[in-house]
Each structure stands twice: as C-alpha cells, then as structure tokens.
C-alpha cells in the first residue's frame, strides 16, 4: 500500500510523468533486449543459425504465427480470447484448397488460373469472416463466455475440416499459389511483407479508429462502456470478425508455403504460442502495444529455430522434442512472471 501511494503521487509531478513515459516504453525496450540477446546467443552456439538460408526460412515461417497472434491479441484486448484461431485458418485453407482442386479446369491457362486463385483466396477470407461472425454472435449476442464459445467452435471448425477432407491432406494446387508462401520480393519473403502490413493495419485499427477506441474501452470496463452508449455487442461482433479474417490470412500463408491444406496443421501448439506471445507482449484487457506483439513473435521464432537446431545435434531427440518444447514454454511463462509480476505488484 505504501509503495502504491507514493507512485500515484509521483505520476502527478512532472518528473513522474517523464518517468512513466519511459516506463511505458520500457516494455518494448525490454522485449527488444531479449530478442537481441537470444539472437546473439544462437548465432554463437549454432553455426547454421546466422546464415542467409536460416534467416530467410525464419522469414517464411514466422508470419503464420505472427498473423495468428494478431488475431488472438485483439480478442484479449477486449477481455476475451479466441481459441478457434488455428481451427479457423485450417478450415479456411481446406475450403479454399477444395475450391481449387474441384473447380480449376485441367487445361486452364495462366490468366485463368490466377483468376481462380483469386477466387480461392476470397473463399478463404469469407470462411474466416463467417467463423468470426459466428464466434462474435455467440459471445456478443448470446453471452457465452469467450473461452467456452471459442473452445466449442474450435472443435466444430476442426470437425468440419476433418469431415470435408476425410482426415486427409488436400494437395495438387497450381504452382502459382507458391507466390504467396514461398517467394521473395526484393529479397524479403512475401509472407513477411504480408505480416508487417497486417501488423500496421491492426495498429491503425486499434489506435486510430473509433472502433478500436471502443474496443479498448470495452476491455477496460464493459459496464461503463455500455453506460457510455457504446454498443458492446456490435463491437464484440466486429472484433471476432476481424480475428476470423486474420486467421484466414494465416490459413492462406500456410497453404502457400506447404502447398497443401489439412485440418491438423499447427493444432494446439499454434494456439498456445499465440497466447504466449500476447502474454510476453503484456496484452491485457484495454491495453496493449502492437509493436510489442511483433517483437514477441520474432523472439518466439528465434527461440524455436535455435532450439530445433540445438536438438538436431542431440541423438534421439525426436522422442522428447515435444516434451522439451513444453518445458521451455513453461520456463518462459515463469520468467515472464518474475520479470513482469514483480514490477506490477509494486
């Protein structure tokens, strides 16, 4: 109590304000520091880490998790969560994939294929939008708690993907699709460009539109936003729609990189990692910096790549890969608790 009292007083003074400004950015600096340390660590310990090949491959991999994390963070910002993000991306990919396999004629010319490809992307986005809308209706209008609603739809959406594919992987896409997932523009992987663009777009949505403002207020105190004339239901609906569409983009990126679509891509790990990224970036209802999410995604990718390179050198490691990765993630949670928890309790 004593400490809290003095810090409140301090924020009222000028020096206090400067201090709190630095404190507000210190999260970003701290995350950036962690990123740099991990990067240097793996560059020194693993010979293959600091190579063009591994850096590029990271640039291709991380956007999937990155866009998924954006989808997750905006729901956490409103005091909710979206556990169905990964199930949504797979469903979007599966449906878009089936569309291509079923409808693109064998003798189609280049231009025609590109047209169908555009149609497939629209299908994916539409699927994401519909699944997000369904989540939003359940949460905003029926009043189901987000964790339950999206746990249920996660199962539902995965079930739909399994039903449509019979549990198999959909393949046989036109090679033009790989532009999205496996090519570079000026040396930069296209998925990474998409991720950066969506990060900026999300930032604009959350911090520079009336919708984002309302979403943050709703996260801070839903009763007060209701009493301030904010239409909570419609804001929640739009937030989950946005989350669904971002998830669908992830589905497109996965499809473009692997040239396949399946119900089981990334299951459980991706959802957990997306939540972990929001925790690392200190996203709480009403508050969160999108830049922090971006850096947290980079951290997780560096960690994941470095960790797998390390394990590749250990014999029989494939047997305890999941185990070791699980332990590592829990260690991150604990480390985060000690660094963050301490400070916020004070």
């Amino acid at each position, binding site marked *: 109590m004593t400490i809290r009292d003095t810090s409140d007083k301090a924020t009222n003074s000028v020096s206090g304000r400067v201090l709190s400004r630095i404190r507000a950015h210190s999260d970003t600096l701290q995350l950036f520091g962690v990123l740099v340390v991990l990067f240097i660590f793996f560059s020194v310990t693993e010979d293959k880490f600091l190579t063009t090949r591994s850096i590029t491959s990271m640039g291709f991999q991380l956007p999937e998790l990155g866009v998924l994390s954006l989808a997750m963070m905006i729901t956490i910002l409103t005091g909710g969560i979206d556990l169905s993000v990964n199930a949504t991306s797979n469903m979007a990919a599966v449906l878009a994939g089936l569309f291509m396999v079923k409808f693109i004629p064998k003798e189609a010319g280049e231009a025609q294929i590109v047209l169908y490809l555009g149609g497939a992307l629209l299908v994916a986005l539409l699927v994401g939008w519909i699944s997000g809308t369904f989540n939003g209706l359940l949460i905003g209008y029926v009043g189901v708690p987000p964790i339950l609603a999206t746990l249920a739809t996660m199962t539902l959406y995965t079930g739909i993907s399994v039903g449509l594919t019979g549990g198999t992987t959909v393949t046989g896409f036109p090679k033009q699709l790989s532009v999205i997932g496996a090519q570079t523009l000026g040396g930069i992987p296209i998925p990474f460009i998409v991720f950066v663009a969506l990060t900026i777009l999300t930032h604009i949505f959350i911090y520079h539109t009336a919708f984002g403002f309302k979403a*943050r207020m709703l996260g801070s105190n839903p009763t007060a936003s209701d009493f301030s004339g904010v239409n909570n239901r419609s804001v929640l609906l739009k937030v989950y729609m946005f989350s669904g569409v971002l998830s669908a983009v992830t589905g497109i990126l996965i499809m473009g990189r692997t040239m396949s679509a399946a119900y089981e891509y990334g299951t459980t790990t991706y959802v957990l990692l997306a939540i972990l990224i929001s925790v690392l970036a200190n996203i709480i209802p009403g508050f969160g910096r999108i830049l922090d999410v971006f850096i947290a995604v980079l951290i997780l990718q560096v960690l994941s790549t470095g960790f797998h390179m390390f394990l590749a050198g250990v014999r029989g490691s494939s047997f305890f890969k999941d185990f070791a990765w699980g332990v590592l993630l829990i260690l991150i949670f604990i480390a985060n608790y000690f660094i963050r928890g301490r400070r916020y309790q004070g």
Partner: protein
Amino acid sequence: MAEEILRAEHISKRFGGVIALDAVSLSIHKGETCCLVGENGSGKSTMIKIISGVYTPDEGDIYINGHHYKRLTPIEAIREGIQVIYQDFSLFPNLTVAENIAINEQLASGKQSVNWKEIYEIAKEGLAKINVSLPLDAVVETLPTADRQLIAIIKALLAKARIIIMDEPTTALTQREVQALFRVINELKEQGLSILFVSHKLNEVVEIADRTVIFRNGQKVLDQEARGLDIGTMAFCMTGRKLDTSAIVFSEVEEAAAPLLRVENLTLAHGFFDVSFELKPKEVLGITGLLGSGRTELALSLFGVLPADSGRIYIEGNEAKIRSISDAARYGVGYVPEDRVREGLFLEQPIGDNVIVTLIDRLVTKLRLLNSKAKKEEADRWIKQLEVKTPSGELPAKSLSGGNQQRVVLAKWVARSPKILILNGPTVGVDVGSKAEIHELIRNLAGQGMGILLISDDIPELIQTCHRILLMRAGRIVKEFQREEITEQALNAELVASATTNAP
C-alpha cells in the same frame, strides 16, 4: 473527563513528497464516541492506519493503556484492544452468521474438528452483547449490509475490543439502518467501550458525537466537545470555506415552454407503476425516496437500460421509443450513474479518453481515422469546463479524487450536450467541499437550458439544487413538493413516513 485510553502524540507521516499528517495529536477516552471528520485526503485514513499499526509514523509517540509505543505493529494494536471495522467488513461471504462470528475463536483454539454446539454458543453470546438478533444459519452474502456490519462489530467485541474504529460506517446504509447502528453504538458506549467514528456526513456526526475532531490537509483544525457544534461550523473547518445556502441562485425555469420530457403512465414490473411527470427546460427535478422505492429503476428505464413495459415517453413533444442506451443517447438523454467506479469510469484509462468516449464517433477525419488533435481539444475543453483538477488529461482516471472522478463522469455526458441529463446520486462518496461545487455545476448546467432529473436521498442536496421534488414510495410517485414547499423538515418527515410504511 474519563480516563484516557489512547493518545497519539505529534504524529507525522510522509508519503514521498506529500505530508499526510503533520504533527497531529489525537486522544480517545473510555466510554466516548469520538468523531473524526475530514475531506478526502485530509489524513484521517492515515491516522486510523497508524493507530491500528498498519503504518509506522515517521515521528511521534503512541500511548495505549499506559504503554508507550514508538512503532506499533498490527498484532500489538489488536492485543491492546484496537479493532478496525473497514468498509468491506472482512467477513467470509459464503459462511453462515454463526461461523463468521465464531471463526476467530475456533482458529485460536487450534482444534482440528468442528464443534457446532460451541459455534452456536459463541454466536449467541456475541449477539447478546449488542442486544440484536440475527438468523444464525443465514449465509452472510445473502444478508443486507447493515446486518453484515453488526457481525463485524460482534467479531470485534469477541476479540476483546476496547476501542472500535468505524471507517465511514454509514456509506451503504439506509436512514433506518443508520438509526439502528447508532443504538448499537450507544449500547457499546454504556459498556465502557470507546468508538472512533470516521465520517464526512455531518448530520450524523452531530447526532452521535461526544467529541468531534476535524482534520484538514494533514493538520488538526478542531478538537472539542460536540455539544453546541453545528454543521455550518464543521463544514467551514473541514473545507476552510464558508458554505452559504442563502446565496444560491436557481435558474429561472421556462414555465411557458413546452416540456422537454413528458412521461405518461410509465410502468415496469417489479420497478415502478403508473409514473407520470413533466420536465421543463432549465428545470432541476428531484426524485427522492428510499432504496427500493423504484427511483433508480425509473432512471434506468428512461436511459434504456430497463425498458418500460408500458406507458409513453415524449421528448420535446415527440414520442420517444427508448429500448436501449443507444436509443436514449440518440434522443439526447444522458445518465450519470450512482456507482461511478463500476458504471461510469474506465479507471485505468486516461482521463481524456474517459471524457470523449461518448463523442468518439464524431472525432474522425474524412478517412474515418481518429482525429487526435480534435480528440485532445475536446478532452481538454471539457476537463477545463467542468474544472477537473488534474495536471494532465493523459493520467489514468484512478489518479483522481472522488469529486473529480464524478466531474469526469459528468463531463462525459455534458460533452454530448444532452437535452435531458439524469443524475443518480451525483455526490455519493464525495466530500463536502466538492459536493458544493458539483451542486453549483448542476445549477449552471440547468441554467444553460438542459433539463435535469436528480435522483437522490440526500436532503440538503435536493434543497440546494431542485426546483421541484417528486417523492416515490413502493414504485409510485406519492407526493410533489414545489420550490416554496421544500424544507428539510417536510422532506425528512415524508421520507421517515416512507420508511415506516415500507417496513416489512
């Protein structure tokens, strides 16, 4: 004078650069009710925490029962018989009355098994101490606040209290429950206990105090026998300003104008029945009644939270269908809720954002992006207009005092320039000085042409702001007071009459 059992001498306490207490002395005698009065931030809470051992003073000495303490620990304070009853009572909501009363003794005995016979005996003994009866098997969370408070008092007595400190004990009580609490306090006094009653409700202080101590800005400004001390003097000591009710200027109601709001036979099941009234431009219409009289339900109905079952609402002569808060906002109705922390504020968010949340859809550029310049201008404008005291609109709303938080909630709706503003308990938990300022603000807003519905059971507040007052009882409007009929006695008599007719 009776024997002195506690004396705190020249106590000073600093938090960072702020002096909370500046060489203040306080003594409590056996068998007296000492009232400690002061505005928010005057140092009264700090003093309570020092004499109960929560804070260590920077300077000064504490003497209890003749023992000298330089540093008092909470355990020593309890051992010396000092018990604090905080506003939340620290009870176990899911346990029964008997369990709550007996739990400390049960824990202290170190027994592993539960002896129900003993629990009931302890509980009965406790109830007998203050001569009240409560259902022993009732789960505490189902009881009204007043009963929970009694349980907290009994627990304090069983812990062998000699001094009971009550921190704002009447905040959540009705008039009748306050009287019941006062009877208990007098009973305790006769048993030789001392009470330190901390409050800023001056009418209650006048009624219960043997001695009154007033703090202002960390200093003691008054310490004397309560007899002969009137509310005006106390208010002056608390605020350092003279509150003059005779000089109040009421706006001129536009009697000739068409009513801003006309309500006809409005009914909400389990809320209110057949309510009809009119509100003119520039008028402040008071709606009073006890808790449960339907006054809050009526307000929520007009604001679209609890849409009425039947009846009609006309705004500026046109029928208004208010089925949701967005409807109400569109018709130009604003609402300042009773529970400002839960319903009115985004405590962690910047003050400025709290103010402009009702305007946000208008503060966009052509590209539908937020116009941050307009945002800041609007926020600053209303913060200035409603005199919210803050160094910056970027600080979180929780950094403000109660009175200033209330101004922010007011600003939020005033910024939308509503035609009709509903205020539900606008000064609950606000200290005397800010209260007078908020009252003046309400009168000024009415003067600018707004129609204001003021829901309150604070009689002085109604007198200082309202042109007319409607009294509600059991969901119906039972009496209307015109300006010239409004006196403290008349209102009090009617409210008390309500209390007796509402009694179960």
